Structures are given as structure tokens and as C-alpha cells.
């Protein structure tokens, strides 16, 4: 239960904060949420990772669907990952997920009793 609360909070807060600030705000959000919701380091990491991974994946896929893949195909060509919008969305989500995951992990060690 804690895991899902943490994951959802990170996703929702990341979305809201992301409207106004830089991309790395996902790290701050994941860190703060993980600090508030005490979990094991493993669960913290995965709630942070999945929270932002899913958020970014869904936004990217929704935008891509509305765009008919026009831009993702061009950017995919530019970045050398081929004309696959889904792969590009996956890479996008992975980048965000990793940053948030490690930020959450970091916070979890503060609360973790020795």
C-alpha cells in the first residue's frame, strides 16, 4: 500500500511541479516523497522509478499519438535510435525514472535505522 501511495504521489506531484520548473524537479519530488513515506530502500527506489517512468511514458505516448508520430520519427532519426516513437518514449521514461529512482533511494537511507 505504501508503495502505491508513494508511487502515485511522486507521479502526480512530479507532473504538477514539472509544469513550472525544470526537468530535474522529478528528483526533488521523489526525494521529498520518499523522505515522508518510509519504505525499504528497494521499495523506495522502485516507487520513485516507476512513478516518473510511467508518468513520462504516458505523457510521451499521448503526445505522440496526437501527433501521429511525426516528430518522434524525426527525433529518433536524429538521436540514432531509428524511427520508433515507442522506443523513444521508453528511453525518455527510463531517463526520468532513473533520476527519480535514485533520488528516492537516497532519501530512504536518511530514514533507515542502522
Amino acid at each position, binding site marked *: 500500500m505504501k508503495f502505491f501511495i508513494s508511487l502515485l504521489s511522486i507521479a502526480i506531484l512530479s507532473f504538477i511541479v514539472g509544469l513550472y520548473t525544470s*526537468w530535474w524537479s522529478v*528528483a526533488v519530488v521523489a526525494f521529498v516523497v520518499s523522505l515522508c513515506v518510509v519504505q525499504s530502500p528497494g521499495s523506495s527506489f522502485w516507487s520513485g522509478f516507476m512513478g516518473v517512468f510511467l508518468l513520462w511514458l504516458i505523457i*510521451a505516448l499521448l503526445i505522440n499519438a496526437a501527433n501521429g508520430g511525426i516528430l518522434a520519427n*524525426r527525433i529518433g532519426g536524429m538521436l540514432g535510435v531509428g524511427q520508433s516513437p515507442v522506443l523513444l518514449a521508453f528511453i*525518455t521514461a527510463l*531517463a526520468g525514472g532513473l533520476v527519480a529512482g*535514485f533520488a528516492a533511494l537516497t532519501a530512504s537511507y536518511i530514514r533507515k535505522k542502522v
Partner: protein
Amino acid sequence: MRLLPFCFSLLITVLLIFILDQPIGTKVPMPLGSFLSPQTGFWQNAEDTAYNYSVDIQQSDLKGNAKVYFDERLVPHVFAENDEDLYFIQGYLHAKFRLFQMDLQTKAAEGRASEIAGPVAVNYDKEQRRLGMKFAAENTLQVVEQNPDALARYTSYTKGINAYINTLTESSLPLEYKILNFKPEQWTNLRTMLLLKMMAKMLSSGTEHDLENTSLRAILTSEQFNLLYPQVPDSLLPIVPKGTVFPKPMHDYKLPANVDSAYFHNQRIVAAQTRYREDKDNGSNNWVVAGSKTASGAPILCNDPHLELSLPSIWYEMQLTSPTSNVYGASLPGSPFVIIGFNDSIAWGVTNAQRDVKDYYTIRFKDDSKKEYWFNNAWKPTQQRIEEIKVKGQAPVFDTVAYTLFGPVIYDGAYTDTITRQDALAVKWMAHHTGDDGSAFYKLNRAGNYNEYVSAIKDFECPGQNFVFASRSGDIAIWQQGKFPDRWQGQGQYIMPGQDSSYLWQGYIPQSENPHAFNPERGFLESANQRPVDGTYPYFIPGTYITPRANAIEHFLSRMNGISVQNMMELQNNNYNILASQMIPIFLHHINEAALTAGARTYLNTVKQWDFEAGPYSVGQTIYQFWLDSLQRNIWSDELGKTGVKVPVPEEQTLMELLITDSTALGFVDNKNTPQVETLRDLVTASLNGAAVKLAQSEKEGRLEWAKFKEPAIYHLLKANLPSFARTHLPVGGAGSVINAIKKSHGPSWRMIVQMSGTIEAYGVYPGGQSGNPGSRFYDNAVDSWVQGKYYQLWMMQKGQEGDGRVKWTMSFIKG
């Protein structure tokens, strides 16, 4: 707290953010984190294909309210209550749809490309600054600032651009800024002038070959030079129909006393060289047919400017309506007004005049400090501009440019002549000192008849253009307009001595004597970058003229009657290679079939069957091109190679004319590097044998058809760096010397046809789309139509048509 894992995890987090928050080398110039983030990065530029462009925009700079109606091709029809609002909105729309291109072009004009592209652009920037691009723009702005009305228009336009720039957030920045990781700068009136100087450079800076001519004269006699690079080609069909009588000029110039010894007979190989020469085929077609030759009885005007093709396109289509204006056509993002188009009374189009308006003078500096130069028997001080070129990722580069009475010293020991250090050359260029050329278009947008058209363009100075004209009242006309020096015979063909005032331009050709024609008896006028007049024109007018396209246009127009719009569309897309039709018989006359290889014989048979159409699937055109290239190399390279510097080879047209009367081409046919004397028969045969080897290779690769061979493509402005943003392998025909002048990525950048009937009927297409955003469906939506030679009907929307089905979106500009 577990300290060790905490520190370790914190380190990874910080490191990840650090890596993702900055560019990784030149290959990945953008910080990946923000670029990938779907809330700030490129995903935000992926426009919904059903995007709604309707929006209310409140602006305190507006004087009244205005509406912009977008049609299904995203062409805006602007309706404003006054001119200032009109150009404010034009600026806003240019920025909204084309900001990056305007920003890039004006930065490049000013010599600031290195700020974006890094060290690779430093030499480009040096050349722009040494040519005096900013100096020229500043001079023009000074003129503009003396005219309050003109200044108000440019200022409104600038404010409109900035109003849009000020709305930008990290996520709404145009895609290219995210890729290259920089931010747009505020627009200024100076930047508009810079954009116009960029056009002046594109069209009037590559039209002279003074440096190369000087080198050529070191190895050619003046007779040879004049025959290989003729002023008036034998087959010229000038813009002003032959037989026109020109008034006697009132020359009062003086030949320099030492002109023979110091100029005509004192040429040498020049080490200085232009690094970034404009494409020699920056040209265009335009023509107009009178009602006497059309099916409808109304004149039809056609224009297709040939420029580098790019995505986004150089043009942005729009309609501009205010109480003083109702005009439709192609505008140039970065400048107000419509440049090529029509209003409810007249239509006009432009082609390039190709005139030489740029000369070079040798400068003798007192010493390396470049602070003084020898002029009229005294040391005269230069004005120095210390140019600081900021370079992305590196320390700035400094360059000192010395300004003389002639103009800036473009080449010297510090730039391009770094080895011999002999050539300090000042450049004198018409574009350095012009009036407010842009306002000619303001007036042209509002002209209602022939007289108003003449008075609109008469102050236009540089780049010289052929303004073709048609009116609904039935008049047709053409003027080659610009400010041109009144040169003595030979002046400025070569580098001139700059030690005194005797070689300066002594005056200008009176504007009223610029080549022009009005309602000619034959019922049509055309220009396609050819020499504007025949040899009877009483002024010396060197230039880089192109002859064959005009000949092809005249060939067809003179035979046509009862012309329809459809006929004109076909003519703009015509692929008939008129030069090949004249050259091939010469080749066939001289070929020694017995000495051909088996492969060459097969290709010869194909060429014999060829109908001279350079269509996309033509094999004859490919064979001809290989054969011709091979022959030209065989004829010229042994002699012209002696200069050791890059010089232009004589035109295909010149070679053809020469071979008709002299099969030795003044002896150039003989290869000077062999003991025996080669004949044209030897060379034509050997050239085909040589070409056949390469043709066989192309055939093996499946690239024998013309379009497969030349691979026409339209690249994004950042060119080969973004291949996935380009449209490649386009199945289009054409060639530089045919009416449909499509080369690899250069050609008709806008095709327009206007029939001046009761209700004006107009058609147009350009290879691109209205949106500069690569994430928009309007980025390249018109490319396929252009490829197929199709046109869109252009809608001159009238007040009261707001409910018309063609209106898809409405943008409301509200004062407040």
C-alpha cells in the same frame, strides 16, 4: 541513517542529473534531461494533428483590434484597422511560425554563426564581417530612421516579433533552440536590415568574378578572355526585346591615365579567394503574357524564384489587409511586406538582375597595423573595426577589419591570403550604401497601375531585380531596377588599383535608363537572369548572366496563343533541355563511332533517341551530363589549371556557340600536355568513352535515371546534421539550364501564376509548409504537390467571407 549507502546513492543521483543537464560533445549539443522531458523537451513541439490555432491575443502595443483567418493550408489572411497593426501582426506571425530561421539568418548575416555552430563557422563569420554586412545594415537603418513613416512600420514589425518572443517558455521554445541549446534574442530594426542585406548578398554578391578574372588574365590574352567569357552571347535573347532603341547617354567619366599599364595589361594570379560563394544559379524565371495571347483575354503573370531549397522554406505565404492595402503573396520572414504577389489591381514578380555591383581595389598599407593606407599621394588613416567573434564552447576570436574610402578590406594577410600576404583588397559593394530598399515593397503592395508600380520600385537599389508587372487594366511591363555604376568599358572586371581616386565609380546609370519594356507588340515579356539588353545598350554592364532558360521560355511563349493558366503551369514545370538540343547535334557530328567502346556505343544509341526532356526518369539527360562534364574537363583543364587557383570554366552555352564556328575552340581543344594535336573528334569520342565507365558504375547502382542520379532533396536549415528532418530522393526532373531549374537542392522556391481577369485568379505552391516546426503536419505538407507540379488556388479573402468554409481557425488580436 546509513551514511555510506546514502552518500553513494546521492552521488549517483547528482551525477545522473549532472550528465543529463549538459550537452555531451558536439554530437549531442542538447542537455538530454530537459530535451527528453515530455513536459519541457522536444515532445512539447510535437503538435497535435488536430491542433486548434484559434486564440485570443491581447496586446497593449496595438492601436485597434484585428483578426487573422487561417485557411486549410495554414495561410493567414490578416485584417487590421491600420498599417502599424498590420505589420505588428505580420511580425508576430513570422515569429510564431518561423522564429528560428529568422534568428539564424540574421545571426549568420551579422557574422555570429559561431555562437551557434562553434569553431567550424569562424571563417564564415570573418567573411561576413569583412564584407561589411553589419556596416551595410547600419547604413540602411540610418536612412530608414530619417523617414518617420517607414520607421514606424519597421518598428511595429519588430514589436510584433518581440511580442511573440516574450510569450516563450522553456517548453514552448521552437525545437531547434532545444536541439542547439540556446535562446532567441530580442528582434531589432537592425536585424530586419540585416535580413535584407542577406538577400542582397545572396543575389548581388556572387555575380562578379573580379578575383578569378584577374587570375585568368594572367594566362589568357584579352581576346581569348573576351571570347571565353563573352559580354554578349551570340544566342542572347535579352529582357528588353531586340530592336529597342536606347537614348544616347550623357557620360562624363574620365579613363584613368595609366589604365593600360596599371590595369588592362597588369594582371597576375591572385592568392586571395572568396571562401563562401553564393550559388551561381541563384536566379529565377518570370514572364508575363498580354491579353492578346491568352484564352481569357486577360494578362497572365508567372514567377518562380530559384534559391536554395530548405525546410522551413525561405517564403511564408500570407494575405495582408488594412485600409490602405489588400495584398497576397510570398513574404520573407524577417522582413515586413509581401515580396512577390498581387493585390486587387496588379501582380508582380522578381528575378535577379545578375549585374556586377561589387569591385575590388588593391590597398597598400603603411605597415601591418593597417592603420594607414596610401591614397592620392599621402598616407590616409583607415577606420578600424575590431570584430569580436564569440565562439560556442571556446574563447572568442578577434579580427581587425580596416575600412578605407572604397570600403572594408576584405582580404589581406590575416584572411585568405595568409600565404603570399600580397593581396590587401578592399571591397566596394552597392549594398554598403543603399536607401530604404524594403519600402519599395510597401509601395508595390499598394500600387494600382503601371505608373504607381514604376514609382514604387524606382528607389530600389540593391540587389538589382527584374520586376515583371501585369495589371487588371491590361498592361504588361518589366523593369530591371537597381542602382548600377556607370562604368567605363572594362571597369571593375578585374581588381583595380586603389592608390588614387581615378578608378572609383564616377557616377551611376540614370534610373530612367534602366532596361525596361512596356506593352510590347509581341505580347509577352520574360526574364530568366539573362543579360537585360543586347549590345546596343550604351552602358558597360558586366554580370554573371545565364542565357539558356530565357531562350527556352521565348522558344515556347513566342509560339503559344490562346494561353490558359494550365499552359503556364506546364511551362513552369517544363524540362526541355534547349542547350542539349543544340549541343548533341555537334557531338554527333564529330563522334568517331568506330573508336567507341561497346558500353559507350550503347549509351550513344540512347542519347540519339533522346527527346531532350530532362524529366525524373530520363536516362538521356544523365548520359548527356556525364558526357558534357567529361568533355569540358578535357577541353579546359589543361590550360585553365595553370592558374593554380579556382576559376570558373566557360559556360556550357559559350562552349556550344564556340564549337559552332570553330571546332578547335581557339585551340583549347588540343591537350597541351600531350605531344600530338587532339581534334574535337578525338575529344568528343574520348569523353564519351570516359563517361561510359562512370555511367556503367551508376547503372550498376541503379542510378541511371536522372532523378535517381541527382537525388534531389530539401534539407532542414541545419542541413546534413539533421537528415531525418529532410525530404530526400524526390522524383523531380529539371536542371540548372532548363525552365524547371531544379538542381540537387536548389530550384523554384515559389511558383506563382496570376491571371488578371475580372476576379483575379491566382495559383501558387512552394516546397515546404507554413509551419517551421518539424513537429507540425504543416512542416512539409506542400512538398508532394510541388514535386508533382501541382498548384493551390490562392484565396484573396474579402471582408464578409468570415463564415466561408475555407476559414479553419481565427486568431483575434485585441487591443489592451
